Every structure is written in C-alpha cells, then in structure tokens.
C-alpha cells in the first residue's frame, strides 16, 4: 500500500490530547473534527474527511493495521446494524446537547465551572492542573466538556480497534453516520448495484 501524507494525520490526535492535558483550552480545536466533516459533506457531498483526513481513523489504522495491535475479528452484527448506528448518533447528539446546556448554566451563573473531565459520560476525572490561564468560565466549561467527549470516543475507538477490525470505530462513529446520511440525502439517484 502506498503511503500518503494524510496517513500521518494521527499525529494530530496525539498533539490534541497532549495539548489538552496541559491546557484544556486547546480542546476547542476539537471543533475542527466536528465542523470539517459536516462542511465537506454538505457542500462537497462526499465523505472525503472520513476517507482520508480523519485523524482518528488514521490513528486507528496506524495502531491496528501498522502496529498490528488489532485482533481483526469481525464486528458483531448488532454493532453494525442501522439501529445501533443511528441510536448511537442520537445518544451522542444528546450528550453534546447536554454539554452545551452545562456550558450555558455556567454562562448564566447558575452553576460554577467544573474543572474535571468526564469519561464515559459518568466517571469524573480530576483535571484542574490543565486550567492555568483563566478565561471566561463558560469557555473553559465547554473545553472540559468537549475534551471529555473526544477522550471518551477515542478510548471507545481504541477498545474496539483492539478486539475487532482496526477502524471499527468508523462503523458507529456519529460523525461518519451523520455525514453518510447527508451524502445519501444529496444523492437521490442511486448507483447501479454491483453485479457479479
């Protein structure tokens, strides 16, 4: 397989999580991973981000395929079912909305800033050292929330990479599901089914 420059985009994942470990405000950069695939899907009608430029996908490829950490088993049928994929997308969007609500509550002064990262939407991990420069509390709250979401999904991706195919995360990745829905909606004329 020929090597392309975008195969090295996994470095961005490492940089992102490292920066967020020392200063949580860098977590805002995660919005690139949220907005770029949507922009490409809406205006370009393609999943070029998933196909090539996703740092998460490249990280899982590097760890699973290149480093050989993946056991390469088939993903369970239920995990690739539309029910699970769409269900996970709805759950993920709900958690994103909840994170925005938490940001609003801090902005409105109803609650105070929580200097912790929440893993798997339930486990609070102290992270106060990563907030050395004080900014508007809501901006910091959003950063903690987004970093939590990014770290949780990365851990999920790595776990499924270890057991199943390297890029198993791509099967139920909410951004991938969402961009595929957009692309399919933009392509009403169907490609002829492959015939053998």
């Amino acid at each position: 397989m020929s090597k392309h420059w975008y195969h090295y985009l996994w470095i961005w994942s490492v940089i992102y999580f490292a920066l967020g470990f020392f200063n949580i405000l860098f977590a805002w950069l995660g919005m690139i991973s949220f907005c770029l695939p949507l922009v490409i899907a809406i205006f370009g009608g393609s999943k070029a981000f998933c196909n090539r430029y996703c740092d998460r996908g490249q990280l899982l490829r590097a760890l699973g395929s290149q480093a050989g950490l993946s056991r390469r088993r088939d993903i369970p049928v239920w995990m690739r079912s539309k029910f699970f994929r769409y269900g996970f997308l709805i759950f993920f969007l709900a958690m994103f909305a909840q994170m925005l609500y938490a940001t609003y509550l801090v902005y409105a002064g109803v609650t105070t800033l929580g200097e912790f990262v929440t893993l798997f939407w339930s486990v609070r991990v102290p992270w106060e050292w990563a907030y050395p420069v004080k900014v508007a509390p809501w901006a910091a709250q959003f950063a903690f929330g987004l970093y939590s979401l990014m770290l949780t999904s990365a851990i999920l991706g790595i776990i499924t990479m270890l057991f199943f195919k390297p890029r198993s995360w791509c099967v139920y990745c909410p951004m991938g599901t969402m961009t595929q829905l957009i692309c399919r909606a933009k392509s009403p004329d169907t490609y002829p089914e492959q015939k053998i």
Partner: protein
Amino acid sequence: MKKLSPRLAFVNQSECVACGSCMDVCPRGAVSVWRGSFAVVDEGLCVGCGQCAKECPASVIEIRPRLSRTAAEEKIA
C-alpha cells in the same frame, strides 16, 4: 481481450458505512467511495486479492467468483 481475474470483491452497499478503508488499502485503485454513500468496485481493475475485505471494519465486502450470478440475480440483471 483483457483476461479478468477469476474472483473479485463484492460490496454489500446497503450496509457499507463508506469509511474508505477499502479504498485506502486497494493496491489497484479499484475501489472508490461513491458520493460519500458506499464503496464501489471497478470490476475491470479488481483482481480479487481480498485486501479490502480484510480491512473492511463493517465486514461487508466478500470475495466472490466472478461468474457466480444466481438465477435470481441473472433475472434482475
């Protein structure tokens, strides 16, 4: 006439997640993702090596004999 391989990759397009892993590993550039919807195989280029099927995270690619149309598929075609 160009001699074609006896086997080739077949994508279950309704279950494909269009991640592009197959496209990435194909040594012949025979796989592409059509409009972000699903993977498609260029039957003239595919040699049925199975790299794509091995990499597909959703396990929706099969390597099938090239001339294996069932009677029902033949009818649809």
